[in-house]
């Protein structure tokens, strides 16, 4: 379910995070479902457990998952998911838009892009 692309420039923990988030968004990992343990995921993927641990810690800090002492980590419930993700993505979008603006990218071109995206969605 979680796959890692070694040629991807993103750090491993980032890839794990993104994979888990995608799974939660698409419903593969429904709310309150238990996540695999750090150990089992580490052995499955053959990567350092700390990497997994870091991914889990950050996801928890960002509110995507929660942990219960002695039981493990679980996917956090529903709707806030998307809001959170929207927030995250818009945060990423801002500097990109800034740069586009400095390059002379027009609002119309942006709108066209938006519409183009809708056609594909």
């Amino acid at each position, binding site marked *: 379910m979680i796959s890692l692309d*070694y040629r991807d*420039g*993103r*750090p*491993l*923990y980032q890839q794990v995070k993104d994979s888990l988030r995608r799974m939660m968004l698409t419903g593969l990992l429904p709310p309150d479902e238990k996540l695999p343990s*750090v*150990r089992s995921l*580490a*052995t*499955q993927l*053959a*990567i*350092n*457990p*700390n*990497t997994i641990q*870091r991914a889990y810690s950050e996801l928890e800090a960002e509110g995507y998952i929660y942990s219960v002492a002695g039981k493990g980590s679980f996917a956090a419930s529903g709707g806030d998911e998307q809001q959170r993700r929207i927030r995250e993505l818009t945060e990423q979008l801002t500097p990109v838009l800034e*740069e586009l603006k400095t390059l002379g990218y027009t609002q119309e071109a942006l709108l066209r892009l938006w519409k183009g995206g809708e056609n594909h969605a």
Partner: protein
Amino acid sequence: MLEAKHVVKTFDGFRALDGLTMTVPTGAVYGLVGPNGAGKSTIIRHLAGIYRQDSGEVLLDGQPVYEDPAVKRRMTVIGDDWYYFPQANIREMAHFFAGLYPAFSWERYEKLKQVFPLDEKMMLRRMSKGMQKQAAFWLTVCCMPEYLILDEPVDGLDPVMRRQVWSLLLGDVAERGTTVLVSSHNLRELEDVCDHVGILDHGRVLLERSLSDLQDNTVKLQVAYPGVTEPVLPAEMQILHRSHVGRVYTYIVRGSREDILRRMQITEPVLLESIPLTLEEIFIYELGGVDYAAKDILL
């Protein structure tokens, strides 16, 4: 915690270890990297208690390793050239280790029979190098060590087996808090499994950091400017490396990504991109300052 403090070792006038200091935190997976002849195998043999240093200390949890069976029982070593008794098979070697390492687990031995496709009754001498390596792992892991030292261990294994082995080892790291010290040339692989890295050259440790620290705080930037001349960059930036192809400049900078990006923005580049560094690149650039020949070849 494994420590080497100012270890010096000379062989016939050749100073193999020149005041080497390194620390492997408990529970870490520590990757020891360095060019050939840097002293990796030598320090590993010191940590294993095979060699005795001329000066300095080699400690496990504060206890000197040399000639201390109580300490050595807690660790096992897989060397780059593993030795078996003539005519021995895996089962015999297992009995041998079981007699010397009190924590040896026969239960694990039986379980791992499913993992390693080896005949335990076949003479080890008759097996291929790769199979012998697998046998080494099988036996070593059954000793249930707290500290595992690997000298270029997985280089002889096929990719499937390599992954199996790392799974096994990392499982132990996660579950039992095993500390692993692995020396290798294969930085690609170390990148996945290590959480600490030590870079070794000419008998000294040049750099010793946690991997996340290294990767998060070393940034590779590709920058392009409208003019022809290169602007003067902010003085506080720790630039490890700079080069350019035409108008595109590449900088390797130490510092946090966001911080650096913000600062670079100020210089008003036409193009500004940050690319995460691989361990291989970090290794080369760190050593590049120490007259390592390959510095400008790779980009």
